[in-house]
């Protein structure tokens, strides 16, 4: 097991290097730099900079360095925790990333737990109550969940909450708590808000996972050992939960690595509509503004989050299924 973990961690670091290269190249691709944007803005306002001033700024930002030198500068500072400056906010990218990333991780993990719990329960129910009215209803909801883009669901939920329930939703806190220090009241307030993003982001994943769970369980229930268990006279509840569900869960762990990227991407887009203080709104804005150090840091950290998540999923799977360790 330890051997397996070490090997996986090794892979992770190799992948990480490539992730950083790709992340940087992508961010470097757009023509022009933030400096040009800034100059244009200053000119629009009627001001101008002398040629010498522009030169000085260019040297300061390393605009004309060859790309490998830029990358080397960036990555060597990156590992020491200096991710560069955000041009737009005039503060270290690190501060911005670390202020936002924890919320993305917390919401993603909670969404994962939510969608797993719901999809196992729903999947088991619809597999054991096949072709009943509720099973068909669940199927309809699953199809809807799979075809509604998360941001649209977020919009609809917010409009519904505001119009019908008269609730002010959006954000993670009520107005009076946004800048307040942590307290019990603020925590309760957070819980009151956080369920909306969790349900909205998790809808797609839940719909998908519960379909997987249903068909897995149907396959397992058709197997002979389940018949044996029943013929021994075991309680149906025991047959299902102890014998069948355990084996049906296995493919669900296998797709864990696939549902994480979906959740994190969903979170970044939904955050814009729901006005969440997570990575999404800042990242997409940085891309639009070509604030490249900030965008690159966000992209790399989202990828790192995902890599760690996948590593944990692999370890979990290896722990559940010894065959994988000796592959």
């Amino acid at each position, binding site marked *: 097991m330890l051997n397996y973990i070490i090997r996986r961690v090794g892979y992770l670091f190799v992948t990480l290097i490539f992730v950083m290269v790709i992340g940087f190249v992508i961010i470097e691709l*757009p023509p022009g730099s933030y400096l040009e944007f800034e100059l244009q803005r200053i000119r629009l306002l009627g001001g101008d900079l002398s040629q010498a001033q522009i030169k000085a700024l260019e040297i300061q930002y390393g605009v004309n360095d060859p790309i490998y030198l830029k990358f080397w500068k960036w990555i060597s500072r990156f590992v020491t925790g200096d991710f560069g400056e955000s041009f737009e906010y005039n503060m270290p990218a690190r501060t911005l990333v670390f202020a936002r990333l924890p919320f993305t991780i917390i919401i993603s993990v909670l969404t994962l737990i939510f969608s797993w719990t719901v999809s196992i329960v729903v999947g088991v129910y619809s597999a054991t109550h096949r072709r009943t009215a509720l099973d068909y209803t669940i199927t309809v909801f699953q199809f809807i969940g799979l075809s509604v*883009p998360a941001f649209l669901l977020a919009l609809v939920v917010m409009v519904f909450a505001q119009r019908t329930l008269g609730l002010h939703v*959006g954000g993670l806190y009520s107005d009076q708590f946004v800048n307040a220090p942590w307290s019990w009241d603020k925590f309760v307030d957070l819980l009151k808000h956080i369920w909306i993003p969790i349900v909205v982001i998790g809808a797609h994943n839940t719909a998908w996972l519960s379909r997987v769970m249903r068909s897995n369980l149907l396959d397992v229930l058709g197997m002979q050992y389940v018949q044996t268990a029943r013929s021994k006279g075991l309680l149906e509840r025991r047959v299902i939960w102890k014998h069948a569900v355990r084996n049906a869960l296995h493919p669900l762990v296998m797709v864990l690595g696939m549902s994480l*990227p979906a959740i994190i991407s969903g979170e970044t*887009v939904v955050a814009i509509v729901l006005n969440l203080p997570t990575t999404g709104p800042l990242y997409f804005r940085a891309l639009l503004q070509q604030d490249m150090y900030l965008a690159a840091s966000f992209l790399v950290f*989202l990828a790192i989050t995902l890599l760690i998540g996948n590593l944990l999923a692999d370890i979990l799977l290896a722990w559940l299924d010894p065959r994988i360790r000796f592959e």
Partner: protein
Amino acid sequence: MTEAVPTLPREELIAEPVSEVGLMSQWRLMALRFRRNALAMIGLIGLIIGYTIIALAPFLGPNDYLRQDSNYVSGPPTPIVFHDQTGKFTLRPHAMAITTELDPVAFKFKYVKDESTYHPIKFFVKGDPYTLLGFIKSDIHLFGLDAPNRVYPFGADPLGRCMMTRVLMGGQISMTVGLLGVAMSIIFGSIMGTASGYYGGMIDDVMQRVIEIIASFPTVPLWAALAAALPKSSSTFTPLHRYFLITVILSLVNWTGLARQLRAKVMSYSNSDFTMAALAAGANDRRIIFIHMLPNAASHIIVVAALAIPGMILGETQLSFLGLGIMPPLVSWGALLKDAQQVSVVLQQPWLIIPGVAVIITVLLFSFLGDGLRDAVDPYSI
């Protein structure tokens, strides 16, 4: 797999005359299974209707999709009724007149329904000129009002443009993005998947790592980063170029799924009797891949591709919603939804959400079709 006998005698197939089943080709059997699936047929027929509608979009929409009506900024949908001024029932639908008033306090336009004036809706009426399918020039619209009155069945956007025509025109982009992107994914994915499954070794190792790296990025942020790298609109880089490059970007991330599946297929074919026979008969690699393996995998490629289309449509919608996808003057459903980013806007102008309904219906139809194809090809899979 060359044998046409169904691998699993399902109830429906047993009902068929057995002798005939044995004679049917594999494709014929698939078609038979597909036609038995009601949802799949709904998907297929719905999509045929959908594509017909978007092909005829400028004719079906009552106005030009770029025409700005400064007197109808963010105007509500025109109420359409089946009676005239006198309140008498008529078979011909009538559009209720809406008068525009300037609210002096809020300094905003107010739209007041004029319950006493009704304009009859005419069919095949002259209106804004358009070009259909790229070469038919016309100015006849399926329905509309006599000039100067105009009908806005889905309301107007914040620039006073007809939402209905825009939604129909947006379909031309949104409903083709998935097809084009998937076509490109099939090309990338087939080449990569076949190569790594057939040759194995180094090629296989490298490709597996590449796929792993691509999979280690969250999809939408990666798409967004790539889309942000596209040049700004200029005379040499038109919105149409951008549209094609967006489909390339969507498929750059998407091909990995197909490549993986195809790799597994090709690997299993490598050890099968028909490959051995072809090798023994002196066939070269190219012949084995193109004549023996790919035709066998064709049905699976189609299924994987069909199941990938909804993801691509949703991807384009999200990118355009973020402002990184399709650029004006082109419209897509995601680009239309960009106007609806704020809840306060949606509360006041709920008709801005209509493009979202179009997205949901299209994705649903494609899911039905994809699921149906999958069940028809392989009754075992999930």
